[in-house]
């Protein structure tokens, strides 16, 4: 193909324009805005590190940060384990397996708001079906008021998020499982390895590159979780289920504190970058490099 030097740029022009206006531009702008006090319709005022100082001196911020880490610590392993478990289940040559795979993936394609409604109903204290099961069949005399109890609200968000997001890791793990050569299992069986030993010494190590990828995207998901909080608890009660992304939203679009929320957004981005960096540095410690 022969073409003028300018031609390729014509092809990427729309995407480039979009990247500048809606990605690169905002990333830089948000950094600058984080040094201003910008409220509602009033013009911004430069305050230096003011927003960051306010943040670090605020109890709510530290609570929100703690919530964010608690959420992540439960969500990431939860999604990875459930995703792998579902992948193992549907990685069988059985009739109708595509139907099961379809059902397991279903939560992933549905609107969070729509499923949050039914989860709200399931977790309702007195008339909810979950507490009915707990009271009647599991002998829990006084099951918690899940969504209005500060001790359990965040846990509910974790459970719903894991259920909702396990489909994608399932698909990725499934592709990984199908890529493990069958002769490895055959050799292990000849050596007398049982099912668990095969899983522990072949499946898991062979899946480490996939697990690494799943870890990166799941971690990213955990630090951008907004919809479940918005749809189920609005961060309550008393900020008990507020995580950083929702706190940013709340400060920007309910309190109209653009400067302060931009500072929060930058803290969030730096945390994500540091964790992603650490993951890449730690990669060689546990990921089997020549798995294939």
């Amino acid at each position, binding site marked *: 193909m022969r073409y003028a030097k300018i031609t390729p740029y014509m092809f990427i022009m729309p995407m480039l324009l979009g990247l500048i206006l809606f990605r690169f531009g905002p990333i830089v702008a948000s950094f600058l805005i984080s040094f201003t006090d910008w409220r509602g319709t009033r013009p911004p005022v430069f305050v230096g590190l003011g927003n960051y100082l306010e943040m670090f001196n605020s109890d709510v911020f530290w609570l929100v940060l703690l919530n964010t880490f608690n959420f992540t610590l439960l969500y990431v392993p939860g999604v990875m384990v459930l995703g792998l478990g579902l992948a193992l289940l549907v990685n069988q040559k059985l009739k109708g397996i595509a139907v099961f795979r379809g059902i397991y993936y279903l939560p992933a*394609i549905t609107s969070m708001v729509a499923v949050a409604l039914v989860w709200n109903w399931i977790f309702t204290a007195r008339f909810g079906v979950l507490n009915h099961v707990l009271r009647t069949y599991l002998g829990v005399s006084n099951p918690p008021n899940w969504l209005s109890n500060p001790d359990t609200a965040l846990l509910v968000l974790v459970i719903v998020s894991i259920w909702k997001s396990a489909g994608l890791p399932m698909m990725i793990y499934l592709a990984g499982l199908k890529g493990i050569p069958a002769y490895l299992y055959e050799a292990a069986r000849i050596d007398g390895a049982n099912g668990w030993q095969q899983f522990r010494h072949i499946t898991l190590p062979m899946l480490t590159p996939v697990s690494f990828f799943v870890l990166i995207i799941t971690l990213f998901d955990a630090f951008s979780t907004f919809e479940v909080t918005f749809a189920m608890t609005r961060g309550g009660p008393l900020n008990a289920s507020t995580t950083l992304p929702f706190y940013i939203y709340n400060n920007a679009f309910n309190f109209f504190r653009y400067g302060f929320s931009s500072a929060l957004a*930058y803290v969030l981005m730096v945390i994500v970058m540091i964790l992603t960096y650490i993951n890449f540095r730690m990669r060689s410690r546990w990921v089997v490099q020549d798995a294939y």
Partner: protein
Amino acid sequence: MLIEKAKRGIATPQFRVQVDNVRHHGVTLTRHTLNYALLIVTAFLMAFPFLWMLSTTFKTQSAIFSLPPMLIPDRLFTPDMFSSYERLFAEHNFARYTFNSFYVSLMASIGQLITASLAGFAFARLEFRGKNVLFGLLLATALVPIEVTIIPEFLLAMQVFEPLFNFFGGRWIDTYNPLIVPSFFVGTTGTFLLREFFRTVPRELEEAAVVDGATVFHIYRHVYLPLSLPAMTTLFLLAFINNWNALLRPVIYVKSPELRTLPIALTTFQSEYTAQWDMLLAGSVVTILPLLVVYIFAQRYIVEGISTTGLKG
């Protein structure tokens, strides 16, 4: 580059050896039964919220709040079985919201196809300065949470686009523009997916066109686009699902009730009709059902797309 690294781990040659034929027949039978039992129990647990949702929409108010909870809804197969749905459309404008969701999702997805296929083609087949740097940056921005970019995006909309559009007699805020245009332009996953696809197209196919003196755009339009129909379908479906379910931008930009998309209609509905679970969940069913139908008929494309890109769209 991150995605490519991980992909190297996934997309490798497969070796299949059949070893199952030595197993004793009886053992296989019990194991199959056990496997199916496990699959069915898991399917029930994963699908329970959907079943409970559907069941509740067919209940009267007193059945909803009965203890123990009623498994079989009391309005099932009675003449007023669908009354929650009827009220939803008759009294609450859900037909309009459904149309809005369709419109926004369709426009944004078509836009994303255009930008992503143009850029994907350039990254796959054309040489230009800064190509690798740009592609790296494109992938890197995929790891920036939307919470970081949404505030300046909103301020840009308020302070620049709105006055600009007002000047020319139009509007930006409280229209579909801020819902459609950003996802129209920024299609990281799509660009990546189509670039990967275009790279697999044999170069010989374009040679005939080159000999005929066709322009680059002609080659893109008449050689690459027709060949990439399956990949484009996948991308379109993923983009459609994403836009259909989108919440943050509609929450921020949509003010007029008649412009609401389904998710945003549901959240306002939720605050107005707290305990009317049959109505609320009928709203959920209406929101989920169109995607469910698409999913059932196009599962192959969707599954293909997510396992090659590892991203939702």
